């Protein structure tokens, strides 16, 4: 839904004012509209009025819009900037906040809220340190610790974020270029293992997946041996890598020897590495979860901030306006007391009304009494009197309208006639009127839904009237409500089984 709904209102800056020539006595006013009417001083803008109304924005706008429609209120377009009225599709129920003291420094009013400096976006926390033996069962930790570096399980796997074997390890470029017979790949592996032995579990050391499979283990160890056994470098110049190659191979064989002779070590170590990996994945998951939660929290806080901002602005405007209105009132109050004046005027209207009533000028009486009621809404007597008079007034008015309509019809001004009739039935929905106008609308093919409504009113008032039902059925049929038409005709046929018109209508319907 867009602002089109309130297109009659124009812009937020426009000023509504009462239509001086409107007849308030006959106006249909609910409490909201009546209240809004009293707020209009021709100075306050729509946005101001909405702000002070204490109503939900949408409701206030709707009421104002209705008033314009009723021609009770006119909109004076603002000169200068005009902001079209557009409100959100799913309006937030903005709670009426306590007036908030406007900030000391007068902020630019139209500062866009979304660009307020917010808190920084959350950063995914990196899981880059976990203590040794992280996630490993206590029993295994004790047992493995006693084995020294053979049982050592680093706190987290080396290969962290789906990187390659070397991950973020920074190679010493000069070392990679030193003169010797090793290939670059060999140098990399040597430098990597040499530098990171303490951070690698045994499976990583052999560049293999953790497994209990002895064949797999041996295969990996053989691969490792082919890389590092001294014979591989026999008669080759290993340069500064010689010592490293030796110590790497020695470490590897020590691990392998221990693993192939100590079943328990193998079992516990594998279990520990698997538990560690699971714990690491858990830690990653938790970090991600915290990150998502932080994102949600920040979003929620931002939203709250936005709401608060909006409310603060509204409150500021409201209090500014209040002050202005208060100033106005104060100025006026210096001339006369408006409350007393109202009561007096109400009394005068009431007296006028009663006189008119006695003179059997019911319509005038109703208008006067309504004004009296508007000026002094708390006076019960006025309301009762109005109710008594307005019924009569409506009937009389309806008759007048009916007669007027009839006149129009007789000179074939069909549309004017129908308008008049409709006005009449609106005030006094007598079945005969309703049926008349409905029949006319059907034959003239005007607003058939309204016609159906009227025929229904008539039929509801006199349910056993076959004529009414027949009409209703015909209208339904015309607008395509065939099921409804069928039921109505069925009812009619029950009341008058022999009526040929009904049967004909039913046949027509079936086709």
């Amino acid at each position: 839904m867009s602002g089109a709904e309130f297109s009659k209102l124009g812009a937020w800056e426009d000023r509504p004012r009462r239509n001086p020539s409107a007849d308030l006595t006959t106006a249909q006013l609910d409490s909201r509209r009546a209240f809004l009417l009293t707020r209009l001083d021709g100075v306050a803008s729509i946005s101001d009025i909405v702000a002070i109304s204490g109503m939900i924005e949408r409701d206030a706008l709707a009421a104002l819009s209705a008033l314009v429609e009723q021609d009770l209120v006119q909109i004076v377009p603002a000169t200068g900037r005009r902001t079209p009225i557009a409100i959100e599709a799913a309006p937030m129920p903005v709670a009426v906040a306590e007036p908030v003291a406007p900030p000391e420094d007068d902020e630019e009013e139209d500062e866009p809220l979304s660009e307020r400096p917010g808190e920084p976006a959350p950063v995914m926390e990196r899981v880059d340190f976990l203590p040794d033996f992280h996630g490993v069962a206590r029993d295994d930790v004790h047992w493995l610790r006693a084995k020294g570096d053979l049982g050592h399980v680093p706190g987290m796997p080396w290969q962290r974020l789906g990187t390659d074997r070397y991950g973020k390890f920074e190679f010493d470029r000069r070392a990679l270029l030193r003169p010797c017979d090793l290939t670059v790949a060999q140098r990399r592996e040597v430098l990597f293992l040499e530098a990171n032995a303490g951070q690698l579990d045994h499976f990583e050391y052999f560049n293999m997946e953790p497994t209990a499979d002895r064949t797999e283990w041996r295969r990996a160890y053989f691969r490792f041996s082919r890389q590092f056994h001294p014979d591989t470098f026999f008669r080759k110049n290993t340069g500064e890598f010689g010592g490293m190659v030796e110590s790497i191979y020695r470490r590897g064989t020590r691990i392998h020897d221990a693993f192939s002779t100590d079943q328990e070590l193998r079992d516990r170590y594998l279990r520990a590495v698997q538990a560690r990996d699971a714990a690491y994945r858990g830690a990653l998951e938790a970090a991600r979860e915290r990150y998502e939660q932080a994102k949600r929290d920040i979003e929620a806080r931002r939203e709250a901030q936005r709401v608060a901002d909006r409310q603060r602005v509204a409150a500021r405007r409201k209090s500014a306006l209040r002050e202005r209105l208060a100033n106005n009132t104060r100025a006026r109050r210096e001339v006369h007391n408006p409350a007393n004046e109202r009561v007096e005027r109400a009394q005068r209207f009431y007296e006028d009304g009663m006189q008119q009533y006695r003179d059997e000028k019911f319509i005038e009486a109703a208008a006067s009494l309504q004004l009296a009621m508007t000026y002094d809404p708390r006076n019960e007597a006025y309301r009762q009197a109005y109710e008594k008079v307005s019924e009569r007034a409506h009937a009389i008015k309806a008759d007048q309208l009916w007669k007027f309509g009839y006149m129009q019809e007789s000179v074939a001004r069909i549309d004017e006639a129908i308008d008049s009739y409709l006005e009449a039935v609106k005030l006094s929905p007598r079945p005969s009127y309703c049926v008349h106008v409905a029949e006319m609308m059907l034959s003239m093919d005007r607003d058939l839904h309204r016609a159906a409504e009227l025929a229904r009113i008539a039929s509801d008032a006199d349910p056993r009237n076959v004529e009414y039902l027949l009409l209703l059925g015909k209208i339904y049929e015309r607008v395509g409500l065939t099921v409804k038409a069928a039921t109505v005709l069925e009812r009619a046929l029950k009341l008058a089984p022999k009526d040929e018109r009904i049967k004909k209508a039913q046949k027509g319907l079936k086709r």
Partner: protein
Amino acid sequence: MERIIGIDLGTTNSCVAIVEGGTPVVLANKGGYKTTPSVVAISENGKRLVGHIAKRQAVTNAANTVYAAKRLMGRRWDSPAVRTMIETVPYTIVKGQGDDCRIKLRDRIYSVPEISSIILQEMRLVAEEYTGEKIEKAVITVPAYFNDSQRQATKDAGRIAGLDVVRIINEPTAAALAYGYGREVDKTVAVYDLGGGTFDISILRIADGVFEVLATAGDTFLGGEDFDGRIIMDWLVLEFARDNQIDLRKDKMALQRLRDAAEKAKCELSTAREAEINLPFIISTGGADALHLQKTLTREKLEELTVDLVERTIKICKKTVEEAGEPVDEVLLVGGMTRMPLVQRRVREFFGRQPGKNVHPDEVVALGAAIQGSALMQDQQQVLLLDVTPMSLGIMIVGGLFSVLIHANTTVPTSKAHIFTTVRDNQTSVKILVLQGEHEQASKNDLLGEFILTGLRAAPAGEVEIEVAFDINADGIVSVSARDLETGQEQAITVTATSGLSEDEIKKMMAENQEYLVDVRTNEALERKRLDARRAHSEVERIFPRVRELLAGSDFGDDAIRKAEGVLNRARKAIDGNDMEALQTASEALTRTLNMFKGVVEKIG
């Protein structure tokens, strides 16, 4: 590319191989034999004899003929093995300076590595003959259960022979290498090696061209020699003494004859059910008459005499299989003694499978050594050997106990450090005794060497910490260092002490050997020339009568005949002498004469 030969330096027989065009081949010696007896002798005129010749003259020159020298390698004078040897061998074993044992041949004393170097030298010459190139590098095999001293001694022997010993490898491992070389093998293999002097059992995992030794054990004093010994001492000597009240052990020549006969009978019994031992004139009784020995040995009797020896090997196998912890897929038999039916039967029973037939028990070890040698030369190695240390290694600690640092069957190369503390107040030095073996009592293990770390801070017992670090390299050779953690002071040794030879001694021996080698080589050239000259000489003599007939009468003819006679005379002298130049001249003159003679015969005759 430089060639590396593989030498199986056996107790009884040695063998040399080389890889040619990717195929390992065993090289035959001059006599056409693929193995050469590991026998060295010094002849009456002081000549070195090696191999078959030495073995053939053993009976007549028993006291100066060394066999089974390998059993003395790296052993201490006072070790039980040396005691036994002294009692049973006909040559003289004496005590060396470094507590080692040496061998006295004629008027000279030889170290054991020197004797071995003579054999290695011979094998080297075989290879040089075959390739026509000078060979300088070798891989030499040793029994897997050799300790560090024995390995060191073997390496020294290689050096004395002028060889660069690029690697010492274990015999069963070498056998496995030859077995698995050049084919897809993914198996656990047991190598049962029973040779002339030693027994080894190794279990290997072979896959992807990698040979990983899982476990190894053995007995370096258990082999064919002991089987022969049983026949001689427990049967022949006993029986003869019972019949004749004479102890044959006293007579070196008799003992040597018994030895030959016993071995011959033992080998015969591998195919036959009984063997005749017939030794006439075995010993003289002082008077004119001599006694003869005539006996029949049955296979049953032999088995009865030696069954406990075979059982000993099986016991060791059992322990090793357990240690390896993996089911064995294939059993290989290596060494001459595995031809004995009893051995084959017991091995089959123990492993529950028929031993593999596709290795040659005498040649496979040398082939493996050659394969390892050539692998080391390649850029991308086809095979890789992951061997282990056969014995636990450690030091003696307080109470005479043995504290192991590196356990048996640890893959080499390896290193291990351990921290020890002082045991007495104000102890300022520690003696580090490096030992190898499996006994918890330090004294029952082999002492590899010792050294003293001094200058420790005087402090209450247990306060000063000393780090002892052991290192075994890819040859299985040990070095040890001790470091005072407080001062950083360090003492290190490569354990060489009991190989018995100092660096100087080795250098001297190398030089001597070089001389000998030059001698041998010039000698050979001389002999070749002599042979040429002799051939030409007899050729000239052969056609001389006919030429004389044809030319006689003319002045020219008489002159030519006189000249030819002179040439023949000079040639005869040169052939009998040792003058290279004279031989050369004589040869040339003979050739000229021969050509002239041939021309005469063609023209006139």
